[in-house]
C-alpha cells in the first residue's frame, strides 16, 4: 500500500523525486565524510606536511595551503566542524523556536502578542549581521559560533509553528479534546504538535542550507571557529590572498564544498516541499 503510493508519487513528480534524491545523496556523503574523517583523511590537518602551496597531485589530491598543510585532509576534517556547528545550532533553534511558537500560539494573550512582535522584529533583521554582532561580543569559539547562529534562526521556527498552531487550534478534534477535559499538556503534545510537526522537515532542511551559508560567512569574516581548527569558510578566507595569484586550490575546494552542502540541503528542502505539499506550485 505504502510502496504503491511511493511509486505513484514517483511517476507523477519525477523531477521532485530526483532532486530530493540528489540532494540527500550530497548531504549523506558529507555526513559520512564527517563521521569517517579520522579514517579517510590521509594526513594530519593541523600540521605542515610538505612545502607550501603545492598544486594538486596524486600525493596531495587538493594541493597544500600556505602553511604546507594538506587541503584534502582539511576539507575532510572541516566537514566535521561544519556539520557539528550547523546541525547543533539549527537543532537548538528548532527546539526553542518550536516550543515557544507552540505555547505562544496555543495560549495566546498578551505574552503571545509581545513574543510575536519580538520574533518578527528579529526575523526582519539581516541574519548574518545579527550573527556577526553576537559572535563579535562572544568572541571566537565553537560553542560561541553555535550560539550566534542558533539565535538567528529561532524566529524562523517560532513563526512557522505558531502560525500552524493557530490554525490547528480551532479544528474540531481539538475542540472535542477540550470538551472531554483533556489537560493543556495533552492537547498541546498529543493533538496539536503531531499536526504541526509535519511542516518541520521542509523548514528544517531549507533552514540548514541557510545556516551552512551563515556559518561559512561567519568564519570567512573571521568570527567563526578559531584558527587552527579546519573549517571551510575560514580556509576559503585563508586562501583568498593567493587565489588570484594562481594558487586557486587553497580556496576553491573549501568554497565548492560550502556550495555543495548548501545545495544538497536546499534540494532536499525543495523536493520535500513539493512532494509533501503537492497542491502548492
Amino acid at each position: 500500500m505504502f510502496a504503491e503510493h511511493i511509486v505513484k508519487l514517483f511517476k507523477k513528480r519525477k523531477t521532485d523525486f530526483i532532486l530530493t534524491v540528489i540532494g540527500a545523496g550530497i548531504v549523506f556523503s558529507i555526513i559520512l565524510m564527517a563521521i569517517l574523517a579520522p579514517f579517510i583523511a590521509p594526513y594530519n590537518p593541523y600540521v605542515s606536511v610538505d612545502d607550501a602551496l603545492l598544486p594538486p597531485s596524486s600525493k596531495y589530491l587538493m594541493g597544500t595551503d600556505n602553511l604546507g598543510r594538506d587541503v584534502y585532509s582539511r576539507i575532510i576534517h572541516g566537514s566535521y566542524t561544519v556539520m557539528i556547528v550547523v546541525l547543533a545550532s539549527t537543532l537548538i533553534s528548532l527546539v526553542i523556536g518550536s516550543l515557544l511558537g507552540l505555547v505562544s500560539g496555543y495560549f495566546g494573550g498578551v505574552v503571545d502578542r509581545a513574543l510575536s512582535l519580538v520574533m518578527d522584529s528579529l526575523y526582519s533583521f539581516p541574519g548574518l549581521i545579527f550573527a556577526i554582532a553576537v559572535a563579535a561580543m562572544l568572541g571566537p569559539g565553537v560553542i560561541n559560533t553555535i550560539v550566534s547562529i542558533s539565535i538567528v534562526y529561532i524566529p524562523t521556527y517560532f513563526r512557522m509553528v505558531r502560525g500552524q498552531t493557530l490554525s490547528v487550534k480551532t479544528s474540531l478534534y481539538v475542540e472535542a479534546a477540550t470538551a472531554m477535559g483533556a489537560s493543556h499538556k495533552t492537547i498541546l503534545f498529543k493533538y496539536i504538535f503531531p499536526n504541526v510537526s509535519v511542516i518541520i522537515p521542509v523548514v528544517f532542511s531549507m533552514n540548514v542550507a541557510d545556516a551552512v551559508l551563515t556559518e561559512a560567512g561567519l568564519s570567512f569574516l573571521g568570527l567563526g571557529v578559531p584558527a587552527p581548527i579546519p573549517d571551510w569558510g575560514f580556509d576559503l578566507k585563508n586562501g583568498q590572498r593567493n587565489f588570484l595569484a594562481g594558487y586557486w586550490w587553497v580556496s576553491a575546494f573549501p568554497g565548492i564544498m560550502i556550495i555543495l552542502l548548501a545545495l544538497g540541503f536546499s534540494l532536499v528542502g525543495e523536493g520535500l516541499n513539493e512532494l509533501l505539499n503537492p497542491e502548492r506550485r
Partner: protein
Amino acid sequence: MTSLKAYVLTRLLLSIPMIFILLTIVFVILRLLPGDPVLAIVGMKASEEQIEKLRKQLGLDKPLWMQYIDYVLSILRLDFGRSMIWGRRPVITEIMEHFPATLELSISAFIVSVLIGVATGLFSSLKPSSKLDISLRIFSIVAYSLFIPMFGMILQLIFGVYLRILPVAGRKSPLVDIDTVTGLYVLDSILTLNFEGLITSIRYLILPSITLGIVLSGVYTRLVRSSMLDVLSTDFIRALKARGIPKNQLLFKHALKNAFIPVLTMMGLQFSILLAGAVLTETTFSWPGMGTFLMERIEYRDYTTVQGTIVFFALLVSLVSLAVDIVYALIDPRIRY
C-alpha cells in the same frame, strides 16, 4: 479618514515598537552577553585605573537601566557617540561616509537580481514542467546556494585575471577623481558631467553587483514564476485571450503587471537578505561600504562604532520595511486594515 490614510498611520505606529524592540535587542547583545567590552578594548593587561576610566567614559559604570535610557535617548537624537580610535570622530559621520557605497552596491545588485529573476521566472511560466522550466528551477536553487565569497572570487579570477577586462577591488580607479555630491559615484559622475568618473565607477561596480545580484535572483525566479502561473489562470486573462489580444501584449502588459505584486511584498524581506549579502560581497571585493567598515571596527574593538553601525542597520531595516508596506498599499487597493 480614508482607509489608505488609516493604513499608513497604523503601519507607522506599528513600526515604533519594532524599532524599540530592535534597539533593545542590540542593547542586550552588546551589554548583557558575557564578554566585557572594556576588557575587550583595552586587553587583559590594562591596569585597574585604565579600566575604570574607560568604563566611566563609556557610561558603563552606571546601573543598567540608566545605561539603557541614555542609549535610547541618544539614538533618538541620532547621536551614535564617538569612535574610539583615530581622532574620535562622531560615529554617525563615519557611517554616512560608508553608507553611500553600500547603497550604491545594493541598488545595482537589486536591479540585477530583479532583471534576472523576472526574465527567468517569465520564461519558466510559459511552459510549466518543460525542460526549460526545470533547468530554470535548478538555476534558482543553485543561485541561492552560491556562497558569495567563492562566487565572487571565481568572477574575479575570470574577468579580472584571465580576461583582464574588469577591476576586482575597490570603488573607482585611483587616477580618477569624482566630486562627492550624494556619495553614489555613478550618480555623482552624471551630476558633475564627469564622463571618466562614470566609466570607472560603472566598471568597478559590475562584478560586485553581478555577484550579489545573481545570488539573490533565484528567489525572484520562483516568485515570478508562481505568480505568473496564478495570474495566467485567472478569468480576466482568459477573457483577454478570448478577445484576441496578441500573446506578447497579454504577457507583458497584463499578466506581468499583476504578477509583480507578490514580488513587491518580498522586497521588504529581500532587503534584509540584500544587506547581509552586501557584507560578504563588500569584504570579497574590498568595497568600502558599511560591511567592510563594520568588520574593520570589530577587529579594532571600536565598541561605540560597532554598536552604532548595528543600530543603524536596525533603523534602516525598519524604515525600509515600512516604506515597502506603504508602497504596496498604494499599489494594491486590497491591502487595508
